[in-house]
């Protein structure tokens, strides 16, 4: 049985255009934009409990734009996006967070940031001791806790 896609084609188009406005690709840093097909696929595949607020946000965006976001001229698109950011409330915040959380776990992006492509467990990380002599002046202080009767 086919399941209904989380977002309509029009919503997916607007999501892609909006994501590219937040994070465009960069030749300098050798990273894709957030409209990259792999990142978009990750967003759609993992929407889960965020589906409803994301739909709500995209509906709000569509109302503000009046037409597909990609069809607006750049200046108008900027204006709509700003208004969307300012007026969209929790649903817009969820949409932006969903874009960011999928973007910043993409292998190409993490590689560009110099981060390892793995979860924290089981390898963990190394934490340097730091300079414990910094604590010497604090150790030299007299007791400062308040005595009680």
């Amino acid at each position, binding site marked *: 049985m086919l399941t209904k896609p989380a977002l309509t084609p029009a919503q997916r188009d607007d999501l892609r255009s909006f994501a590219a406005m937040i994070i465009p690709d960069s030749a300098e840093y050798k990273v894709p934009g957030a409209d990259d097909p792999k990142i978009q696929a990750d967003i759609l595949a993992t929407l889960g409990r965020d589906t409803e607020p994301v739909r709500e946000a995209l509906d709000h965006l569509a109302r503000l734009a009046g037409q597909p976001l990609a069809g607006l001229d750049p200046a108008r698109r900027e204006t709509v996006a700003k208004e969307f950011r300012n007026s969209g409330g929790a649903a817009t915040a969820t949409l932006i967070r969903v874009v960011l959380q999928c973007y*910043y*776990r993409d292998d190409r992006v993490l590689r560009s940031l110099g981060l390892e492509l793995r979860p924290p467990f089981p390898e963990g*990380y190394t934490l340097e001791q*730091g300079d414990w002599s910094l604590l010497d002046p*604090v150790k030299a202080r007299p007791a400062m806790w308040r005595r009680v*009767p």
Partner: protein
Amino acid sequence: MNEAVDVLIIGAGASGAAVAWSLAETKMHILCLDQGGWMNPAAYPSRGRDWEARFFGDYSPSPNIRARPEDYPINDDNSPIKVVNFNGVGGSTVMYTAHFPRLHPSDFKVKTLDGVADDWPIDYDTLAPFFAENDRMMGVSGLSGDPAFPPTEPPMPPLPLGRSGAALGKAMNKLGWHWWPSDTTVATTDYEGRARCINLGHCTPACAQGAKASTDITYWPAALRAGVELRTHCRVREITTNEHGMASGVVYYDKDGVEQFQGAEVVIIACNGIGTPRLLLNSASGRFPNGLANSSGLVGKNLMFHPYAQVYGFVEEVTDSNRAPPICLWSKEFYETDLSRGFVRGYAFQFGRGAGPVMEAVMSEAKGILPWGAAHHAVFRRLNGHRLQLSAICEDLPEEHNRVTLDPHLKDIHGIPAPKVDYTIGENSAKMMEHGVARAKEVLAAAGATDICVNCPILYGGWHLLGTARMGTDPERSVVNEWGRSHDVKNLFIVDGSVFVTSGGVNPTSTIQAIALYIADQMKSRLANLFD
């Protein structure tokens, strides 16, 4: 029909586990009911590439967002601070930062010292042996010799300072202010079957390594070995009473949703400062029309949260970010009362090492310091891995209008009325937060940080749920006596953060557990006349 037990404990979290373990030596038939189940470390977030995203979903600290079957909804719309907790075996010790300070001696005498609120009926010296016992059971790492606190002997050495701790320590030294490596329940050595910390970093939503102490891996294995029975996925609806006004047992829903009765000679509540008043109010009856143990009218009142004032910034050097336990230091420079500051009581600072890339992006975008468009990449690289942060954890004074009641409409999946929180930040707390923000900015300036941001209060910062069934010697001004027994119902005890008289200005788990051990000790020493 369930066989009646000697002692029934409701809640398997920080305090329920401690009291179960301590009472086990009596060889009484002890049963604990918990609304959640055992945790599965194989499913913890830090094992997957989506480790940060899960913080916004099934491992959100908010029960309203997380909405697991174990959770119950909380109406906190009328509060600037939202309740956060975790439900399951281990309770909120599964999901906490493991920062483990104790209340100070002065915290127990606020009326005497500062003329506000009330003194506790117990003091620090009474609890001291139980703090030490709890440190051994939970496994605390720390450094002796803090001049801001009476002597302690943590069983393990402290966490490394790391880059973030050193940078913050250097800044504090420039200002001449107190700081110290935090006591933490993150094991720095192999300890009692737990593996040492390997710096997974994403500690708060449960530790896949098992290095962070949660009671499902500390107290509970010992309690079960000693014969305590733990029944999971059992949500208690109400405590029943008999014709003598004594607790007779509880009505609960089992894992299949079937209503059950469990009789008991003694009932101990360990459901935290929200869950405990909810249960007492839901246990109203003809004999106790205003809720059980509520002749004082104080059940649910005097809710204290600890408003957090968080300030952070970004330095040029690389910090530890997400590659280490999140909290490294504390400061008690502004902990004790100094009236020249414009408020009574005080706050501790807790210092954070940083954040992971997703968290950094989400938080910085929301604050408006991470732009959209072409500039995004360069700015993100300047911010990510360069964060230093600190939070003033402010003492909240008890105010009766800050309260937990029953929501007239909202219910959990079993149809049990949910709690409703009405809370405002008091004037004294607000002044304290303002002071904390100003001092925190000075610290960050001394560290050379820029792009300073403030969260005051932290919206999802209602970790510490205190004061809603306070202890005291006067039955008209308290819910339980000085050893945790209800004034009204002589075989009913409360051992969680509800019994706090005042909040202090530090994370309360260590003190909650010390109180639970103390109450258990009192019960053991009074077994022959427990109900007199």
